[in-house]
């Protein structure tokens, strides 16, 4: 906000310098919307892009037009409306739906492959044997596969695109033109990504649960500790695992969002997030670096198997959640520091 205030006087006193210095002008337009002469030339080409075409349903909102008449409830309402429209955009976007359907298909493929393999009963690993023995186990098996790469890819595409995509398409300045505030916009973008992360986790869980129920016998579930629990309790444990994995993906979304605030090329933020994930997986595989492993985010992704121990290893889950909270706080604040002070020039 201080940038806008410091920039405005210079704008009024010397319009000539303003025209020659695009960055200052850009900031002013973005944070302090007004009938400035610079907005019109930018608006004309942009109205024709797809990004703005998609955003049109949001424009005729009554809350926006109402302005400062009833500040508090209206603003809160505006926040949820903004989130709602953001979610609508995310979940209507064909790319995002395609990624969700890939996540849904992979457990089905795993399930079919296992049901074909597990027919002859010799020399099969424990996990596969327990999948064949119980339908619920497929969920955990699918998680242990997907949580390493495919789910991080999905989440970082959405979160890495959140700011950089808007900036790249030239729609970010118009989003900020609304009296929404950058912090609020960032919060909406993050919540949107986190909800998508949970949706991706739930899609994997539901798909593998349904596949498991169709292909494998239902009934009491055998835990890794060799203890058997009822199916209802097994479902509860799946719910706990979904909560944990979703939080893990939401933490990764915070990293991707922070990277997204630094660039206008969304593929850059997405690729950088994926590089980080892969590098962390490589570092985990080196035994000499065991010391730093507990601090790496992807090292915590697979800890959901704590729900499969005989007394649930709450300590491991709790440690993991603390690590996720730390990552969300750190990268969320980095994203905020960068985004709230950024010159929006495109």
């Amino acid at each position, binding site marked *: 906000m*201080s940038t806008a205030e410091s920039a405005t006087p210079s704008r009024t006193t010397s319009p000539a310098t303003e025209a020659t210095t695009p960055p200052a002008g850009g900031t002013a337009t973005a944070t302090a919307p007004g009938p400035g002469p610079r907005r019109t030339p930018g608006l004309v080409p942009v109205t024709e892009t797809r990004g703005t075409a998609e955003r049109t349903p949001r424009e005729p909102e009554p809350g926006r037009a109402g302005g400062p008449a009833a500040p508090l409830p209206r603003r809160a309402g505006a926040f949820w409306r903004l989130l709602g429209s953001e979610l609508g955009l995310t979940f209507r976007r064909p790319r995002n739906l395609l990624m969700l359907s890939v996540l849904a298909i992979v457990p089905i493929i795993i399930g079919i492959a296992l049901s074909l393999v597990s027919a002859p009963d010799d020399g099969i690993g424990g*996990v596969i044997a327990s999948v064949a023995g119980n339908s619920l186990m497929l969920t955990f098996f699918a998680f242990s596969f997907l949580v390493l790469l495919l789910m991080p890819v999905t989440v970082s595409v959405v979160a890495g695109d959140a700011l950089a995509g808007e900036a790249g398409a030239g729609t970010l300045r118009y989003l900020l033109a609304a009296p929404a505030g950058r912090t609020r916009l960032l919060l909406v973008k993050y919540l949107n990504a986190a909800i998508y992360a949970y949706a991706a986790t739930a899609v994997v869980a539901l798909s593998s649960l349904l596949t498991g129920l169709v292909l494998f016998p239902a009934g009491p579930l055998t835990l890794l500790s060799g203890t058997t629990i009822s199916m209802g309790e097994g479902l509860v444990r799946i719910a706990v695992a979904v909560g944990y994995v979703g939080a893990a993906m939401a933490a990764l979304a915070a990293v991707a969002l922070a990277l997204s605030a630094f660039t206008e090329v969304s593929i850059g933020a997405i690729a950088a997030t994926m590089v980080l994930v892969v590098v962390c997986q490589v570092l985990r595989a080196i*035994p000499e670096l065991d010391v730093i492993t507990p601090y790496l985010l992807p090292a915590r992704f697979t800890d959901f198997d704590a729900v499969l121990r005989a007394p649930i290893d709450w300590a491991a889950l709790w440690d993991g959640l603390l690590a996720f909270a730390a990552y969300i*706080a750190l990268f969320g604040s980095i994203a905020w520091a960068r985004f709230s002070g950024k010159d929006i020039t495109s």
Partner: protein
Amino acid sequence: MRRGTFVRWGVPIAAAAVIGAAIGAGPVIAAVSGDPVLPERSAEQLLADAAAATGKEGGIPPMSGTVQQTASLGLPSLPALSQAGASSPLSLLSGSHEVKVWYGAADKLRVAMPTQMNETNLIINGGEAWYWDSATNTATRVSVKAPAAPTHTPAPVPQTPDLTPQQAAERLLAQADEHTTVRVINTAEVAGRPVYQLVLSPKDAGSLVQEVRIALDGETYVPLQVQVFAKGSAEPAFQIGFTQVTFTPPAAENFTFTPPAGAKVEENTLALPEEAGRHAEEHAERAKDVAGEAKVVGDGWTTVAVVPFDLNDVTAQASQEGGEGAALLDSVLASATPVSGPWGSGKLISTKLVTALLTDDGRLLVGAVTPEEITRAAGVK
């Protein structure tokens, strides 16, 4: 603008500081609040109290916790070790490992080793013992004739009835005094509990061991940690101990095990009278053979064991069996340095804690001693 930037970036920096402080909070709080101080005790008093506490009715109190074992023996780089499965005993030689322990009574014990999407369990309840391995989906029932001896046996103090714990401790220390300096630290902490540390340091300069520290819980006198420090290193070369411990009786479910449906169930009986006797005889025979040829040079901390050893035999056997044993042997032999002296010549393998000498005339010398010491032992025929 510039000031705003500083203020803004102060937020993530503060967040990082808070997270860093939270990670380092344990040591910091410990440093601020000062070391826990237990009443001072001499080694003799400590041993006597420990013997009295663990030797009495009930023995070790019910407890559960997480035990971590860390070894950095400075072994030559062992690629085989990192590939070896986590449950392989060889993997214990490097890196760190964690097991969870539930101890209910002398005949109720559960030890679990969780690995990613797998778990191995040893459950002892009464005369019955189960070994469960989720990786192979196998439950092995181990029947033991006598009540299974738990891993935590009461303190190894001579149980002569006419000896009070006080006298036993006195005698033990008198024996140790010849080679060892014993002192007690009362300001240490293990797993958040104040402990007494019994520090044993060898008097002999030829030993590679700097000191051995045994931590006894300040309240229950249960051994909580054992550390072995090598000469000239601040970090323990070998350490096993609790990272988390509670002295409350664990839930009874921990000690009951029913093989899950669909699992392979195997029976494994230990110590069947005749068979075991026959085996024992065979073993005794072989042991006698080896013992006849093996001997011990030196005493106390600088003891060196000398065993007849034919390298070609072992290499042939290992390569026949294949697997990690052969790989390990290869990498160890590759790192050995050739040495020679008036005693002959051989290959020297030295680690932080143990030195081994493989002489060309077919002897293997092993001891926790310096290379000089071991070559001197090689000279003793």
